[in-house]
């Protein structure tokens, strides 16, 4: 299966979603998205890090330094309360968007 470029704005949604379970560092986030999407979605570092810093600025995730799996210093991101709320609304609007798009595609 070929890879798909992420539509504008969906990356934020995916990052927030991957962080619901546990705090992760940047590399792990991109790996997780890749794994779960069965290699369909690939996150470029060039868009990942600006997105992370933007989300941090908005207060939806916060960063702290911790030790990684192989005991190296890594920057972990975790979801804040505001981030959780944001995720819910974004998920919701995403679902409505996809159903609406699907409906149009089916009827024509």
């Amino acid at each position, binding site marked *: 299966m070929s890879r798909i470029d992420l539509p504008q704005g969906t990356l934020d949604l995916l990052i927030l979603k991957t962080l619901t379970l546990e705090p992760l560092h940047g590399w792990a986030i991109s790996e997780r998205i890749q794994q779960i999407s069965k290699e369909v979605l690939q996150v470029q570092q*060039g868009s990942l890090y600006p997105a992370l810093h933007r989300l941090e600025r908005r207060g939806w995730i916060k960063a702290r330094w911790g030790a990684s799996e192989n005991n190296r210093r890594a*920057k972990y991101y975790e979801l804040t309360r505001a981030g959780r709320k944001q995720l819910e609304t974004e998920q919701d609007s995403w679902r409505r968007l996809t159903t609406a798009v699907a409906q149009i595609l089916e009827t024509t």
Partner: protein
Amino acid sequence: MLSDLLFRLRSFFQRNRVEEEMNEELCFHFERQVEKYVASGLPRAEAERRARLTIGGEDKIKEDVREARGVGFVETSIQDLRYGVRMLRKNPSFTIVAILTLALGMGATTAIFSVVDALLLRPLPYNDPAKLVVVWENSIRHSHPHNVVAPANFTDWQRQNSVFESMAAMADTRVNLTGNGDPEQVVVQNVTAGFFHVVGVNPIVGSGFTEDNWKQGKDDVVILDYGFWKERFGGDPYLIGKAIDINGKPQVVVGVAPKDFNLYVKDGTLTGAKPQMWSPWVVPQSFGDRKQGLGRYLTVVARMKPGVKLAQAQDQMRTIAWRLQQQHPDTNAHWGATVVSIREQLSGDLRPALITLFCAVAFVLLIACANVSGLLLARAAKREKEIAIRSAIGASRWRVARQLLTESLLLGAVGGILGLLLALWGTNALLAASPKGLLGLNSVSVDIRLLSFSAAATLLSSLLFGILPSYVASHSTIAETLKDETRSSPVGGRRGLLRHALVVGQMGLALVLLAGSGLLIRSFVRLAGVNPGFESRNLLTFQVTLPRSKYGKDELQVAFFKELLARIRRVPGVRSVSMENYPPLTGLGAATGVHILGQPQVPISEGPVSGVRVVGPDYFATMRIPILAGRTFSDAELNEVRRVVIVNQAFVDKHLPGENPLGKRVVIHMRDDKVDEANPSEIIGVCGSVHQMGPGEEAKPNAYWPMPELPYSRMTILVSSSNAPLSLVSPIRYELHQIDSELPMASVASMDQLLSDSLSRSRFVMFVLGLFAAIALVLTAVGIYGVIAYGVAQRTHEIGIRMALGAQRGNVLGLVLGQGTRLTLIGVGIGIVAALGLTQLMGSLLYGVSATDPITFGAVIFILVAVALLATFVPARHATQVSPIVALRYE
């Protein structure tokens, strides 16, 4: 929002740390990626190569991250600022001209604002000043809405109103302060019960008056004015509880009023001076009795009840006054009541002048902004290439506009700071130049209000002059600019048009300012040319007040002044000497109803009115007031009551038109009605009319009585000297103290000085407005010079071709001059229309000149056009010297 700001600030201020963290984070990512490839079996070198490929350009990522963190805005601004500073330093002549122009405009604006703020806007130093009002009687017949109040009416107002919480009356008088130091005449304000409650002020030292102080025998207390306490008593705190001698009687000081409390109501003062102390006024039983005759002399202050509006208070007072008219037609016919807020009362007569000055200074600022805007437009044209290249390599319009706006703000900020310094210096110079007591301010200091105003003015004007050039510059098309080497458009297209519009606007504003100041100058010339009706040269004036305790009887007063005049007459250098109770130009006077026998008898309040002056021997000779008919007082008339009076020409014109006044007999109601009725005075002479209240006020009917007719305990001595009048002060003081060493010589002044003081406000407003108009003229000249010179520089090529094709110098000169003339005339046209409208608002500042005076308008149009043409002529001449060869080769 706040967290966002903090985040941005951290990104900015801990830049190094944030950068390091970002590097570490990206580095970590890279290594994990390599490890992943190595784990899948690739050799390390290949794994690194792959990782690098998937990750992409590291610098681009970092830049994007920085942008995402919001460092951009602050950093870009700093970049812009640095760049701006460089650009301004690279063009020092432009920068200096722009900054000086702005500093001048903003300095003048801030200076005037500080005065306007202190006088019109700042809260007054009274408790809840919005509730404090002054209540006057309104003399409907003499259209004098701020007339002092009769005690009987005050008493009735107090009883009948329901809008005021409290009401008090005051009347000021001069008393002699003796003991510790030279005797001195001071102004004391006698206030009725509750006065300090009405104004809502408590003494800063001492306990103040108690209710008991308004009982007979307990009123020997005073509260001192702060300034007077400092000046006369060195601010001695131990003075409280001690007695000072006033008119020979000890009075205990019970308080000092706050520094800025100085309730001085010009319309109601009887001494014409600020009070130096307050004293409780125990009003006699007969105070509110109408049968005692009805002198009007009180100033009434009142505090409105909570929730009562000024209009309500005015309504009720009008109703009460109307009722009193019906009940007491003999005393109150044609008398209404006026309620004035304290702010209006205290600044009312300055308001038109201040508002005019503030508008004028705003115009100056606008002209300054237009100038700088024009300069920036011209400079933007020179920077077209630079801007085009910036756009070509990817700068957005907003980015370009922002850069230019930042430069404008920078200019504005430097100009604003310089302007503030200029304003501080200027305000204090303004106050020093302003006539004493005119503004009631001694100095203005920098405070948060002034700083905020200055900052706001800076920001606003920076936007005002910056927005147009930066909009134009950021919207010029790249391709055309880079291509355009031919200078095809003669005046630079849209940009040229804009600059022309700016110059036209400047011309218009300058014309308005010139017209305004021209009108004031003409008014002043008129005013200064008014013959006051007497000769002010070499005339010394001073006041002597005889304390009642020592000179209670009329005969004692008459004898004292007779001896004083006799002694002064012998002083070398004295030409003649006389005296008068209310001399001209002191802002004071007594006026009363008169009845000319033979004319129908009407109630006093409806009959003719005349001023009454009591004078000494040689009065008309000393003042050099001409006797137009009849004779002056004889020695006998000056020494005993002979029932004679001299009236002025205005009296004859108004009350005895077409009749021979000599021999007519008049009842002058100055004493008890019955005494007056039984003792009419015979008119023995007619003298010239004097402008009692100053050259700006018309000469009113006046009757002159010799001293014995109505002795006064306070007289102003008038000494006509053969040389400098003030040199006579000490010999005269010596003579005065020979008679009574406890009597001060008060309000010493030369009549020339009083005359000059009476013109001081007109002179001051004229001077300041004239200064602004001059600044406006210079700025406008610079503005039109700039536009034309720039146009010529741009058209060098075209002019060269014209000359190569045979155009004469005259043609070229005409071409450029024509352009300047066109702009000037359009601007002048707009200016005339605006000025005709705006000068109407100056009506109350003008004297003897109409607001649309054609001579003034003609003169200022001539001046403006002449200056503009002169400014155009310089670049026009320059254009004629263009050599065709050089111009064509110039590309």
